[in-house]
């Protein structure tokens, strides 16, 4: 059994690496298609074409695309993400710093949305068809369709400008402790919480409704178990399986979806880094940033698949008998 699980994991890992490689090609081609070249971006629109050509020669950006791609990939494999044209410095430290910030924000989002979403979903399922259920379902759906930039602005106006409960900027003063950091992160986290809440609540509700009406739940009730035991041991365990997978898969989305929020709240995360790089035609930074987000996305999907397999004995222990 353990062997089968190991093989499954290795196969998924290989597939993930393949996906990552395909992504690197797409990212590279995308950057090649973008108008403008690095030297022009560095020297500005008024620079002498001869100087541009000379700089391109120096940077190697006038080589054939295949050669550029190979040297880029070669660099990545040896841990060199390239040089940023805009900052004239290696890319890697920027990416690292931004990734840590983004992960902090994402962690904040999930720390808020997971308990609330699951709690609301469970509550809705237990009151299925009643007013509370309708309220939760309608609220979840309506919140999901509010774009981040709309809710962000509304939240900023209410909590930072009018009530002054929370700091406007997500960036905390250098050297702040964790509590201050958390205080700064709550407001930027909320727009994503609003988007994800409905999704998680509805998944939970669907899983709960199914488990509550399942025959095994009736068996548990007829054993004479107290209701909290039925709920905890028999219902939740089965009901939350799909939700856990969904949450894990959403981690990747959250990281990529932070662009708007990071920009609005002026937060130094991977989203704003990528956006800045695209504006500045800082190709090395852009490629590395997108690839990092992609890698993270693929990793969370892998984790989600693995979690499902580990939590569901039907998948964990293989077929019948």
């Amino acid at each position, binding site marked *: 059994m353990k062997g089968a699980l190991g093989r499954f994991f290795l196969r998924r890992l290989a597939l993930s690496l393949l996906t990552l490689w395909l992504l690197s090609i797409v990212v590279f081609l995308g950057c090649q298609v973008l108008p403008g070249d690095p030297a022009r971006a560095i020297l500005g629109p008024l620079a002498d074409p001869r100087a541009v050509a000379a700089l391109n020669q120096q940077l190697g950006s006038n080589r054939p695309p295949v050669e550029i791609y190979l040297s880029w990939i070669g660099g990545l494999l040896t841990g060199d993400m390239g040089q940023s044209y805009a900052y004239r410095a290696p890319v890697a430290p920027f990416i690292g710093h931004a990734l840590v910030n983004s992960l902090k924000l994402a962690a904040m989002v999930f720390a808020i949305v997971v308990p609330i979403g699951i709690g609301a979903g469970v509550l809705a399922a237990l009151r299925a068809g009643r007013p509370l259920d309708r309220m939760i379902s309608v609220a979840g759906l309506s919140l999901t369709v509010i774009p981040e930039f709309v809710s962000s602005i509304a939240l900023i106006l209410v909590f930072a400008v009018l009530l002054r409960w929370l700091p406007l900027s997500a960036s905390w003063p250098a050297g702040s402790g964790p509590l201050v950091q958390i205080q700064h992160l709550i407001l930027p986290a909320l727009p994503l919480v609003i988007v994800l809440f409905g999704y998680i609540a509805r998944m939970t509700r669907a899983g709960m409704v199914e488990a509550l009406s*399942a*025959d*095994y739940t*009736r*068996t*548990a*009730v*007829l*054993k*004479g*178990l*107290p209701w909290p035991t039925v709920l905890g*041991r*028999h219902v939740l*365990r*089965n009901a939350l*399986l799909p939700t856990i997978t969904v949450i894990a898969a959403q981690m990747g989305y959250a990281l990529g979806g932070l662009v708007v929020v990071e920009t609005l709240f002026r937060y130094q995360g991977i989203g704003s880094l990528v956006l800045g790089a695209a504006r500045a035609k800082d190709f090395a930074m852009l490629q590395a940033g997108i690839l990092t987000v992609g890698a993270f996305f693929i990793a969370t999907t892998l984790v989600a698949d693995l979690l499902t397999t580990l*939590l*569901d*004995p*039907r998948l964990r*222990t293989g077929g*019948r*008998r």
Partner: protein
Amino acid sequence: MKHAEIAPPVLELRDVSVSYRVRGRAVPVLNGVSLSLGKGEVYGLVGESGSGKSTVALAVQRVLPPNGHVSGGQALVNGRDVAALDRAALRRMRARDVAMVFQDPGRALNPSLTIGRQVAEVFEILGSPHGEALRRAESMLERVRISAPARVMERYPHQLSGGMQQRVVIAMALAKDPSLLILDEPTTGLDATIEAEILDLVDTLRREFGASILFISHNLGAIAGLCDRVGVLYAGRLVEEGPVRSLFRAPRHPYTAGLLRCLPRPGLRKDLSPLDTIPGFPPAPGSIVAGCVFAPRCGLADDLCRRVDPPLVPTGEGRLSRCHYADRVDRLPHAGGRPAALRNASGEVDAPPVLELDGLSKTYGVAPYAVHALRDVSLRLMPGETLGLVGESGSGKSTLAHALLGLVAPDAGSRMALDGAALAAEVRRRSPEQIKTLQIVFQNPDSALNRSHTVRRLIGRAVTRLGGLAGALREAQVTRLLEAVRLTARQLGARPRQLSGGMKQRVAVARAFAGNPRLVVCDEPTSALDVSVQAAILNLLADLQAERRVAYLLISHDLGVVRYLSDWIAVLYLGRLLEVGPAANVLDGPHHPYTEALLSAAPSVAGERSGRIRLTGAIPSGVNPPAGCLFHTRCPRRIGPICDTEEPPLVADAQGHAIRCHLPREKLGRAPALAPA
């Protein structure tokens, strides 16, 4: 049972009525049902789908769905009104007094908890500490005859077979040593031999535990073998009650009599007489019927029946009947009606076979893990005849049908021929003629028919695709098919959900016959249907065969069905043909020991299950089949080491009855259950 008058009955229903609220309207499902179970008694509740029999079980345990409620009467367990119990007392009753086993064991067990955890839980509720609960769970599993209980404890439900799962559910139910055990269709969906094992187990355990049992089933044979008394439910009313033997021997209600006559029983065959059916349909729940509920379908009904609802009155010997003419039931006219169509008893002597299978094998997987689903099976089927295919699950029945239909490709070297022409392994490479010639009727018409199409469209499409007809010709053919399957033009505009199960299966049959097939594979054609509907479909299949000389390959776990329709019977075990021959020879014996066991496992209404042969041990895995005779690990008549090492050849007698066994033919047995009643 003598003490029933002194102590309160274990279960007593007093005039219980239950209704479900459907679209704001109260629909009665149970209507004034009264019954009582004494200590240690086994009471069988029979009824077809929609009769309300499962609702009885749910009402007793107070687990009706949210839209259902008890609208009248009382259910008393050990003399206490269930409706009056508070939350804690109700939980205590469920934990100690009443246990329940449902139809589908695979769904009744929690998929993400181990078996040990789920069984031990029952003891924990009763106050055992964890370790002791686990020990008692293990010994409980042993008591339901699970070998290696320690290993089963660590398994998850999906790792067990259906029969094992049901044993676990029964173990959980009996663990609390309940005074009342409710079994709701506990063997529906299980194989015939597993069904027999479970029924045996229940029969043994009732003596060991002394629980009273309410056994709910549509299977008259199972009820006959197990119960002391029987109640017959029709449209939410108890129409007859009495001791099982006398009730089944001489029913006093026309509905009971009709049900019993519907059963394909020994001595009845398609070429001798059609099966009796019960005409018409049960009333829709909630419809108001003046007079007797059964009158519209009853052959004895007169004006009195249509005007006055008969009361449930005693008819002697502890029997009750809700019929004005209980004493006349034996004069109920046979409702089969039409005289048996002319049958071709022997078929044309010189006609070439419609189907020839030669050395058909199918192996899944590769060398060390290969599963031999079919091993070198050779069969012939003549036009206008039925070949019944018999065997437990995993015997290769379905693989054979799938190979025939081109859904799985058999191994190299297998040969299939339809009407003398080689039949390609893949549907794509078959000629349109061959596709028309070979059709299928599935078990479940619900999943076989497109729900959004009307009957006209469902049959019309088949006529166009298989018959190549369009326009007026197509309409004419649709009408002809509709008549052939005894549906009327009224149903043409209906969609599947507006039809009853039997009607849907008729549409499925009509579709299969759209291209005038020569061979129809019938895969459990009636096992999703009620007894009375089953009889009508079997009659239909027999009539169509006589009219159109179509051959059937019939797959069924119900030996009654196989016996009624088949001219030839083939017995498969682990993909190997163990016996094949003319139906009468295979059924009357001498038979292969495996066939003998299968035949004696089938429950019969006559209720004689004493001479049963019990197969012990599980079906061996196809990955690692036994050496020698494949059946030797479970064979009750193993003669010696030769069985373990050498596989016997398939030896045929002059009539073409072939048996694969080392025992000489004169020493092979005959199943006693088959002696005509």
